[in-house]
């Protein structure tokens, strides 16, 4: 049996209520922290655990918390990033559906460690059902004294509001999320200043992904050493791998960091459908560069995938078999990013549209081989030239598809 951190009790209907959560040891970490630990000790434990952000960038959560000034004199805010928009990703929805209180408890611990008293859960607009689940959980936590004034009889207080987005991929990017939360269009901000210094309403702000926060209670309760028994020294713990596409058993699999991509697909997700042959794998959401079948004996962790020219991203593994033309994958990629560009930076605003027009022509059977060179050049011109990571998100998958599947794409060209 694999040693899980998050999903041990998932599937228990009662876990969705605070009574069920308390029976499974819920809010014990909060009690331990608020009664027996200083905020600095909580921060230190999460730092020692080496918990890296589960949203996509993989930044160490403890370091992020440490950047927030202690005595700023202004309000400080915590944002829970539940704006799960990276195509192929469904792990945060899974956590909210199975165990909403783990997110609240994780947020409470993060807030305690950073002396924050106001939290907003920014949840994507399409997750209306999940927003209601979270709202109910927040009400339960208030009633039971785990949110609000004098939590657990201590002087610590935390207010939490569930805030729905309204349909925008870019709002998952942390500074776009802040803009959106302020009621504006979700256009990313220039960094620095980083949100830890100047964030929501101009105040110091911590932004953490749902999965990241949901891991914190177990770390605080059992200690960093316990957490580090799973995964890799530089990337400890487990991840929720969301496997989807042309596999036998799509779903969420909680596995240690460092599990091989082959094992995830062929052992846990049941391999391909009968008679199908693997063609390509996107290992970390639609913006992660594609891997070919000879590249899947790779350790799934941030550093290994970066070394292979891809990324672990949101750990959303999308499996593509030989029945799917690569051109149709490319078209979905270019169309998506052309639709979702926020319009702020010229290379992304124009480049994504140009790429999509060219791919559209290829898809109509009117493509020329030199179009593939143009795509390569355009993507290269977007990469690294935008305010936020979306430029790279749009460019890198195109570069990988065009270069790794050049032969097949050339066959789709008219000349």
């Amino acid at each position, binding site marked *: 049996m694999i040693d899980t951190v998050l999903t041990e009790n998932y599937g228990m209907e009662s876990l969705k209520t605070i009574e069920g959560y308390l029976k499974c040891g819920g809010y014990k970490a909060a009690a331990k922290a608020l009664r027996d630990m200083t905020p600095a000790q909580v921060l230190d434990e999460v730092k020692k655990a080496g918990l890296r952000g589960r949203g996509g960038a993989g930044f160490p959560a403890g370091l992020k918390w440490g950047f927030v000034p202690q005595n700023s004199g202004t309000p400080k805010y915590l944002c829970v990033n539940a704006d799960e928009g990276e*195509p192929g990703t469904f792990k945060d929805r899974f956590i909210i559906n199975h165990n909403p209180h783990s997110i609240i408890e994780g947020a409470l611990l993060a807030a305690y460690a950073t002396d924050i008293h106001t939290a907003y859960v920014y949840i994507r607009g399409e997750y209306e*059902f999940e927003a209601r689940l979270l709202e109910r959980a927040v009400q339960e936590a208030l009633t039971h004294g785990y949110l609000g004034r004098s939590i657990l009889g201590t002087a610590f207080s935390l207010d939490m509001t569930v805030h729905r987005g309204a*349909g925008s991929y870019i709002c998952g990017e942390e500074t776009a999320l802040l803009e959106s939360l302020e009621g504006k*269009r979700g256009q990313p901000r220039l960094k620095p200043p980083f949100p830890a210094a100047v964030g929501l309403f101009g105040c110091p702000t911590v932004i953490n992904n749902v999965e990241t926060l949901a891991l914190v209670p177990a770390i605080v309760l059992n200690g960093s050493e316990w957490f580090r028994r799973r995964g890799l020294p530089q990337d400890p713990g487990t991840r929720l791998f969301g496997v989807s596409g042309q596999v036998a058993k799509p779903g969420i699999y909680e596995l240690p960091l460092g599990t091989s991509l082959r094992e995830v697909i062929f052992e846990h997700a049941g391999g391909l459908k009968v008679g199908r042959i693997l063609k390509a794998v996107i290992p970390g959401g639609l913006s992660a560069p594609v891997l070919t079948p000879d590249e899947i004996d790779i350790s799934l962790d941030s550093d290994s995938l970066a070394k292979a020219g891809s990324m672990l991203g949101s750990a959303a593994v*999308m499996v*593509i078999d030989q029945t799917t033309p690569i051109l149709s994958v490319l078209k*979905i990629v270019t169309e998506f990013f052309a639709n979702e560009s926020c319009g702020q930076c010229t290379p992304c605003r124009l480049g994504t549209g140009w790429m999509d027009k060219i791919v559209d022509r290829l898809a109509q059977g009117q493509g020329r081989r030199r179009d593939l060179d143009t795509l390569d050049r355009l993507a290269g011109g977007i990469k690294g030239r935008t305010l936020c990571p979306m430029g790279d998100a749009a460019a890198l998958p195109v570069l990988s598809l065009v270069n790794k599947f050049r032969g097949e794409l050339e066959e789709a060209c008219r000349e």
Partner: protein
Amino acid sequence: MKAEFSPGLLAAIREVAGRYPKPQAALLPVLHLVQKEFGHIPPEGERTVAGLLGVNPIRVREATTFYSMFRRRPMGRYHLQVCVNLTCTLLESRTLLGYLQDGLGLRPGDTTPDGLFSLSTVECLGACEQAPCLMVNEELIGNLDREKLEALLSRLRTDHD
């Protein structure tokens, strides 16, 4: 011109606006409330919201045009949104979309003349383990195939009658 909001809607808006240190931060939740009441966000509604939150009307227009879930014209009673992103496409969502288009006589973006159905395509709904999937208003329906889709359409038609 401003739209008349019901006392219930006004009370809900005031409650939401009170949760934020700056009223403009309540804009998205408030627009969700307005859309729920009217089925879409009429231009006069934008002005009313601007007045209530004390922001320039252009700020409201920016939000209603930037965020894809805000609808600026009336929609059918049932809004079918079919995911056409990668995982769903790999599992034939576009074939199902074609079936819906033929069955309803609609192109994405259109509404049936009786006002019952609107059809759209949508980006990843975060339910890839249940691909192919769609949303009907706020309800997610996954693991679709042709039979399930037919059953869904006839259920919606019956519910309406």
